[in-house]
């Protein structure tokens, strides 16, 4: 019997999850959100362009109407997740110092969470009119 060529167990190898323990999850989720964001971005451009230059009352009413609000919420959710993964990719490429990397990754998560929640709250407030 020959000695094992490496210390990784067969189970670990067959799962193929790699050092980050998450395998290709980020890659796949980046694709799913990207596909979603193509029509959602087009919808967002149409919404933004049709609201530019309108009165405040009209903007508030249209942004709060169900169809528009749902599209904006979907755009915000998909964007926040997509940009979280994307910026994480950039940070991991360029930031090598451990502490700074950790802080950057945290700041990235916070920024995306705050941006998503702020946008979503504003749209929901317009929708429910309180």
């Amino acid at each position: 019997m020959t000695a094992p060529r490496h210390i990784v167990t067969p189970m670990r190898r067959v799962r193929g999850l790699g050092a980050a323990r998450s395998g290709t999850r980020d890659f796949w989720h980046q694709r799913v959100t990207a596909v979603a964001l193509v029509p959602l971005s087009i919808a967002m451009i149409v919404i933004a362009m049709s609201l530019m230059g309108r009165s405040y009352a009209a903007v508030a009413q249209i942004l709060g109407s169900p169809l528009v609000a749902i599209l904006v919420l979907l755009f915000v959710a998909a964007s926040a997740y997509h940009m979280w993964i994307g910026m994480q990719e950039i940070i991991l490429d360029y930031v090598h110092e451990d502490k700074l990397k950790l802080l950057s990754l945290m700041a990235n998560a916070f920024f995306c969470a705050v941006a998503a929640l702020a946008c979503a709250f504003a749209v929901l407030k317009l929708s429910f009119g309180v």
Partner: protein
Amino acid sequence: MAEIEAHARAGRPLSPHLQIYRVTMTMAMSIAHRITGAALYFGMILLAWWLIAAASGPNAYAKFEWFISSLIGRVVLLGYTWALLHHMLGGIRHLIWDTLHGFEPAEREMLAAATLIGSIALTIVLWAIGYLTMGGAR
């Protein structure tokens, strides 16, 4: 990093970085994809401002409108428009590549050019529509 530093200390050659390669169209569009992605990341602040202003009331919305119709605001919005379109077209290019198509030299060049020309053309079209329907600069 520790690895890179260890290599540098030992005087071993490092893998060359961007500046050593001749700039190609596909390389430039790859860099542009990353830069526009990062720009859109911070562009989210503009979207959040717009939505929060609309949810806050007429005064807050007037402040946003003042900014976005100022020269700086327009330049930012123009950049946002182009970045969004370029990143979208670049993303579609990546999705095509994910299906294992478009890797031939001519196809790569065509897709890279299409990303740049398409995004600039669409930006011009959208802004022309915007100015025509809103009666130009006010």
